[in-house]
């Protein structure tokens, strides 16, 4: 019968219309500024720099190796190395960035900087309300805008951050153990050397020219 197909479609539309009043799963709209969906844990937007401890500048994990700057596909990262060094979490002296800018109007949120960073220093943020009236300076994030604490990282990506912390702690423990072992070895070597010189000195004592 002509029109039966349309009628069938209309029944479907009516079912959806009525269903949106009774069935929660058919009511999918979220009224954004008032209500927000929780973000997925893996969600990513723009990169930020992680620091450990209380103070941002000394705790910054970034060592200005510039790997992310080289690997960034749209070239949105700009780094200038500082001449002064600072100790990293292992206590080793490392470089630090004097300038670290990310132009988020160029960034395409691909996460490649995070993947290539060997120091777990750059991670993806979930902040998405970045609109500003100044599209040049307002979207050029400086080092001071980018650094965020490790606690913040823990909050936005708990699983990933715990894994990173575990790995860093392991590395630190290994480094400490190695340092301790090295120190012991050095001490033992020094002792042995001392002993050796002592033993070498004892027999030579009688034949010393002073005697």
């Amino acid at each position, binding site marked *: 019968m002509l029109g039966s*197909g349309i009628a*069938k479609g209309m029944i479907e*539309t009516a079912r959806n219309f009525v269903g949106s009043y009774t069935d929660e799963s058919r009511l999918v709209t979220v009224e954004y500024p008032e209500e927000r969906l929780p973000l997925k*844990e*893996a*969600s*990513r937007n723009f990169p930020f720099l992680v620091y450990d401890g209380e103070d941002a500048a000394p705790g910054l994990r970034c060592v200005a190796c510039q790997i992310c700057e080289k690997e960034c596909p749209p070239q949105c990262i700009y780094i200038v190395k500082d001449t002064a060094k600072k100790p990293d979490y292992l206590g080793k002296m490392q470089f630090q960035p004097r300038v670290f800018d990310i132009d988020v109007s160029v960034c395409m*949120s*691909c996460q*490649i900087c995070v993947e290539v960073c060997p120091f777990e220093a750059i991670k993806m943020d979930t902040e998405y309300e970045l609109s500003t009236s100044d599209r040049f300076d307002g979207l050029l994030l400086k080092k001071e805008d980018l650094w965020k604490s490790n606690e913040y990282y823990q909050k936005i990506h708990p699983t990933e951050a715990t894994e990173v912390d575990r790995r860093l702690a392991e590395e630190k423990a290994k480094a400490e153990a190695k340092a301790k072992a090295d120190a012991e070895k050095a001490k033992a070597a020094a002792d042995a050397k001392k002993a050796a010189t002592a033993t070498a000195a004892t027999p030579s004592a009688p034949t010393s020219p002073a005697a």
Partner: protein
Amino acid sequence: MSVETETPAGKSYSVLPKTAPDGSIDGELLEVAMGPQHPSTHGVFRMDVVLDGETVVRLKPVFGYLHRNHEQIGESTSYLGSMPYTDRLDYFCSLTNNWAYALTVEKLAGLQPPERAEYIRVITAELTRLVNHTCLAGFLLMDMGALGTPLMYAFRERERILDLFEALTGARMMCNYMRFGGCRVDLPLGWIEDARKVVDEYSQFLDEFENLLNTNEILVARTQNVGVLPPELAVNASITGPMLRASGVDYDIRKVDKYGIYDRFEFRVPLGDHGDVYDRYMVRVLEMRESLKILQKALADIPAGPIMDPKAKIRGFRPKPGESYGRIEGPKGELGFYVISDGGPNPYRYRVRPPSLINLTILEDMCIGQTVADVVVILGSVDIVLGEVDR
């Protein structure tokens, strides 16, 4: 008797005006530029249409408005650096684009993704196919004047799959997920259960969608016997994907090449009979059903294990000199990448074979003799994304 017509592109061609039986010229031809701001052209795309009354006499597709040097960028960034750019080719199907590029470079570098990664790739690719075909049906109906309902229903379902993508890859559309030799991250906790739920409920949505549309008299009248593409012409013009299969040619790269682990799945290849717009729509709906079968099996069978080839490396990746062509059955057709390596950190040559562009070349043959309103519908059924056409 012929008339020279000057197009804005500068090329002139001659068209025969309609002649009355007594030999006198009856009426004038009208040239209309549809696009690039026309809402029915799915982006910035122009069709120079020469009309006789309402009938199309000539049609010239003009593209390039969205050209952004994709291939040149691919040659000047590292192999990995091109991966996020492939997301932006066909922005509805970033995961299949990733797969095609990863497959090509894996061929070049001799990497073999582990089993779990292969399963994840099949799952994400089939979910992408669902997204693409659902949206296509919505857009096609919108081109026909069904301005809200089918598209909104399609987008409602698409949203659920995009949520899955976000939970897995971190982004809804620009996933940048696959790597040479595997995938970037493993599935998060509970993802498989969520995916299974979406897949199980998807067939219900398809029932609803088909009830809404399949027998609708207006849809049938607007699409049947419109834009017929004969199989010989389709093969000669190297059309691929659902468009080719709607013309009745049994050619699906998932079956032909059996790339990845597609030989482990049972699925049928739906074929059309007439090659008209309605067949193209139906082939896609049926393909979604087959995708659901693949997904159910893959989600049940996925093994545990690593997701990256241990030989793969992220930094300092330099494949040996050589060349390779990798292709997959993307939702729109054969998506191929051709990469030549000279041993350096970036490819010497990087070429994309985009299905949308090649499927679009046949537009004129399908449109001649049809009305202007049908041109919009035919273009909608080709399923183009201008990001991929222009690159």
